């Protein structure tokens, strides 16, 4: 797990530098009347606060898990560190679930409602939700697969011949995979709750405000999905690298005692490449989520006709 310790702070540093250099333009612009502009500005302020809270809570959760894993390590540091990105993502998405949107005030004396049952795919493309679900399910499948390759202790992998034995740890057997799979399932449930709450939050019906509302919903959905997918892909990357290292190590054999195994060597290379790519993709998603979190959802410009 030393690579986790080494990689995570660098990843966070890159993340922080990248986010700080990004331009934080608004997510979208609309024209609205002066009263609507005020209402949108208030909603935007509340959403900006929520976004900062989302990022802050996630970073605090990450710091807590890293501190427990590296300094205190009360039980076992490897599993605590492995759960750090997922715990941070769960904590961040809980903030979105608690405060999905800030309602945009339409009028003081009347309120309107559309007579259709709102669905998630009214606000975000269905492929985006399906892709996120597929990534979560795929990651669980990968951990189960790696778990079946490991030794009975669930934390190492071995290769035995008549003349010798070689082993490698840590390997993502079920000792590590079970808590990670459980965390991915919890993350999936929290994301589902957040998305349901985003969909069901009160919605205005006046055209410019409805447009703002749709944009803020899409913004919140993308934020939740990027955080969730980023954490899962990053965690999978860490363990694919460990699995790849283990497979390659065993595949190399031992001169004079154990013949090299080309299939294990090839699998090792494949897992290592997949691991590094997953880690980079995970960091990219985290940066992307951070960039979105720091943007204003929508800026309402006062319409020239309605001033």
């Amino acid at each position, binding site marked *: 797990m030393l690579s986790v310790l080494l990689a995570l702070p660098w990843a966070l540093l890159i993340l922080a530098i990248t986010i700080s250099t990004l331009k934080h333009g608004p997510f979208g612009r609309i024209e609205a009347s002066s009263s609507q502009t005020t209402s949108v500005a208030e909603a935007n302020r509340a959403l900006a606060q929520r976004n900062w809270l989302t990022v802050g809570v996630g970073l605090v959760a990450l710091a807590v898990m890293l501190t427990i894993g590296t300094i205190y390590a009360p039980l076992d540091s490897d599993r605590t560190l492995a759960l750090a990105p997922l715990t941070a993502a769960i904590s961040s998405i809980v903030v979105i679930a608690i405060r999905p949107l800030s309602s945009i005030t339409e009028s003081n004396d*009347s309120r*309107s*409602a559309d*007579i*259709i*049952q*709102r669905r998630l795919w009214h606000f975000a493309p269905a492929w985006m939700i399906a892709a996120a679900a597929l990534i979560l399910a795929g990651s669980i499948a990968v951990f189960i697969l790696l778990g079946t390759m490991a030794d009975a202790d669930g934390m190492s992998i071995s290769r035995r011949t008549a003349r010798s034995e070689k082993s490698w740890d840590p390997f993502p057997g079920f000792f590590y995979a079970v808590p990670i799979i459980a965390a991915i399932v919890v993350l999936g449930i929290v994301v589902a709750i957040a998305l349901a709450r985003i969909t*069901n*939050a*009160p919605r205005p019906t006046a055209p410019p405000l409805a447009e703002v509302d749709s944009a803020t919903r899409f913004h919140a959905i993308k934020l939740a999905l990027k955080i969730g997918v980023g954490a899962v892909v990053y965690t999978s990357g860490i363990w694919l690298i460990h699995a790849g290292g283990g497979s390659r190590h065993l595949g190399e054999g031992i001169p004079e005692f154990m013949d090299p195994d080309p299939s294990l060597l090839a699998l090792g290379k494949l897992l290592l490449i997949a691991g590094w790519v997953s880690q980079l993709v995970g960091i990219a998603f985290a940066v992307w989520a951070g960039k979105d979190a720091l943007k204003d959802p929508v800026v309402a410009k006062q319409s020239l006709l309605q001033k």
Partner: protein
Amino acid sequence: MITVSQEDHRPAYEQVREQLADQILSGRLLPGHRLPSVRQMAGDLGIAGGTVVRAYKELESDGLVEATRTGFRVRQIQQIADATRSAAKKYVDSLIPSGVSLEEAMRAVRVEWAGTQNK
């Protein structure tokens, strides 16, 4: 779309019930159309969930909607005949320029209807 107004002195559930009934009877909401969940409707209109439940229950007892496991759906009902709607449209068009309210127009219809029945 339906609206709940504070200027309307009728209870909120009645405002919701009446507007939904109008849309169902006029055919704008077709049979099988799923009404928004109680939570969604209550949130959008800024009213209590119980108020929406009461409106939906009254629509159900009027035979306009039916409760299913997944919520309330518009029932198959007899639509207003084209001739009746056409006559009503002529009446409404004739009243609009004089600024007559819906309540007054409906009261006039009830009075005339009752008079016809008593002849």
